[in-house]
């Protein structure tokens, strides 16, 4: 069990546990958000192990650093206290959900097999330099379009959330 493998499994366990915590945590939404952060940081760790350094950094900066903070921001803005589970009917849904989950998971797992082994990656793989080059040579259009998307999202959010001062 090499050190990276050990690291991977710890991160994996951490991610799964915090994800479950997020689901189960009914009383405190902020706690749920924090567990989401933990999942994301754990995933970032796994990305580093999978030689995706830039992605890991961006994951932390954008996902963990900004998006979940946005969640927290909204939670605080609206001062949402706690949430409770639905009445018994929801129990049924919960049960169905769990069953569903198991089925989905089994379906996904069953589908895999015969995946190739890991091979040492080419030099500088996943580093910011290569990704930068790829981003601005092959995927320039992608970058431009995503900038457009982001602007649209900003405008959308603004309009939705702005108080109607008219």
């Amino acid at each position, binding site marked *: 069990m090499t050190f990276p493998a050990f690291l991977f499994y710890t991160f*994996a366990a951490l991610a799964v546990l915090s994800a479950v915590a997020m689901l189960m945590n009914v009383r405190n939404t902020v706690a749920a958000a924090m567990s989401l952060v933990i999942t994301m940081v754990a995933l970032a760790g796994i990305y580093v192990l999978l030689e995706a350094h830039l992605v890991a950094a961006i994951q932390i900066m954008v996902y963990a650093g900004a998006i979940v903070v946005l969640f927290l921001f909204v939670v605080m803005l609206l001062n949402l206290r706690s949430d409770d589970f639905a009445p018994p009917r929801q129990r049924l849904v919960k049960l169905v959900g769990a069953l569903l989950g198991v089925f989905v998971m089994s379906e996904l797992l069953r589908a895999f097999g015969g995946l190739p082994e890991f091979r040492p990656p080419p030099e500088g793989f*996943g580093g910011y330099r290569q990704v930068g080059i790829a*981003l601005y040579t092959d995927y320039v259009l992608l970058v431009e379009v995503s900038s457009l998307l982001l602007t649209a999202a900003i405008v959308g959010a603004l309009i939705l959330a702005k108080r109607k001062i008219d």
Partner: protein
Amino acid sequence: MVPLEHVIGLSAILFTLGVIGVAIRRNLIVMLMSIELMLNAVNLAFVGFNRVWPEGPAGAAGAERALDGQIFVLMVITVAAAEVAVGLGILISMFRNRDSVNVDDVSLLKW
């Protein structure tokens, strides 16, 4: 280091958890979070597969194509950011109209 099956397995588990989250929880915020979780699971799968085929499927053109997976992950993150922004916008306007973030309260298909 770790056989790819495990990485993809983890991604599957996380995805399923996300799906369950969305299915069960009635609080819109948690649902949005679960969606983020699902997106993260997908990102993980992308990175995993990209790690395994650095030169892209069946020797795609040139090395720099090797990073398809990771670039796609960046795009997913962008989309996720946009989605959260709009989602929270909706949430705020919903809260302002219904005074609750519970999804079942907005089942009238109109404000």
